[in-house]
């Protein structure tokens, strides 16, 4: 809600010559791909809306890295065990010392994250006998990408 919400465009103060000049300079910088203090931000926003295709090798590397994290090394397991023991002890102390539920604690955020679930509800008719698997994969990935973004926001403490 801004102070301008109940005003028409014509009621707003007209731009000053300096503002017009700055806007013109920004437009020219964007069109020519030149440097400008605000141009980088606007280009980043454009990538957010319409990202360029990911290089297959980069995509493969990202997938490999993410999946690799799923299988910790032998040494990693020992470290993880030690960390888990310390965390479990710390969690126990916190729980014993706490007197009641605190809505700002991590478990509440964890509870509100979007969970994994069946994709059946995305489909409203039996699958074609041949073909169509790729489009089903697209649909599942697209839907879960939305949930993934929501979870990123929630983990960052932002209500999407």
């Amino acid at each position, binding site marked *: 809600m801004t102070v301008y919400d109940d005003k028409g465009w014509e009621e707003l103060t007209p731009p000053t010559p300096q503002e017009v000049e700055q806007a013109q300079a920004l437009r020219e910088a964007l069109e020519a791909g030149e440097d400008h203090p605000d141009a980088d931000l606007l280009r980043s926003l454009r990538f957010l809306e319409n990202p360029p295709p990911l290089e297959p090798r980069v995509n493969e590397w990202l997938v490999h890295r993410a999946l690799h994290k799923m299988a910790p090394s032998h040494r990693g397991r020992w470290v993880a065990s030690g960390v888990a023991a310390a965390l479990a002890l710390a969690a126990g102390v916190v729980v014993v010392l706490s007197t009641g539920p605190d809505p700002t604690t991590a478990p509440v955020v964890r509870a509100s994250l979007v969970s*994994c*679930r069946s*994709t*059946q509800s995305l489909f409203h008719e039996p699958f074609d006998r041949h073909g169509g698997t790729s489009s089903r994969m697209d649909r599942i990935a697209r839907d879960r990408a939305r949930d993934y973004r929501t979870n990123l926001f929630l983990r960052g403490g932002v209500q999407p």
Partner: protein
Amino acid sequence: MTTKLIRLVFLLGLLWGMGCSQRSDTPCVCEATPVVDTALMAFLSKAKAAHHQADLLEQSGQVDAAIEVLDKVTSFTQMSDRAEVREVLADTLARLSDLRGQRGQWEESEADIRKGLELAPSGSYFEGHLYEMRGVNEERRAKAQAEQGDAEGAQTARRRAIEAFERAIQIQDSVIRRELSDEGADR
């Protein structure tokens, strides 16, 4: 001695931590179900890319190469606690079974179906699709065996195809009925 001490500390911490499950008014981390995270998105991205790659290979007649690409998806055995992973694997196995059926690899295609049925949720389109694919492959097998002069084998395969199609229809009917009743309840 040190190891015993670490174990004791770990056990105490664990028991203390588990105590939080007795608080009914606070959501507890120990009740956590898997959430949509980077690992799931990476798997879905991999599956998506593999299926599109298999499309292109199939279109250019390279069915064996398409099978090889999809095999890389179904060889993934982690994250089976996530419904999305199980369903994507089941759907991929149905496609693999179809491709192997096209190559006359009857035993392998049936193995894919069995694996897929272990993963697909009961009474879902995924399950119905797997039975339908079993029917398609048995139909192909019946035709191939009849051409080879194996009348008895062809008859058996035909009977299995009919049973599989019948099962597919039953499942799809039940899913459609459920869908319609859900829609009715939403109105």
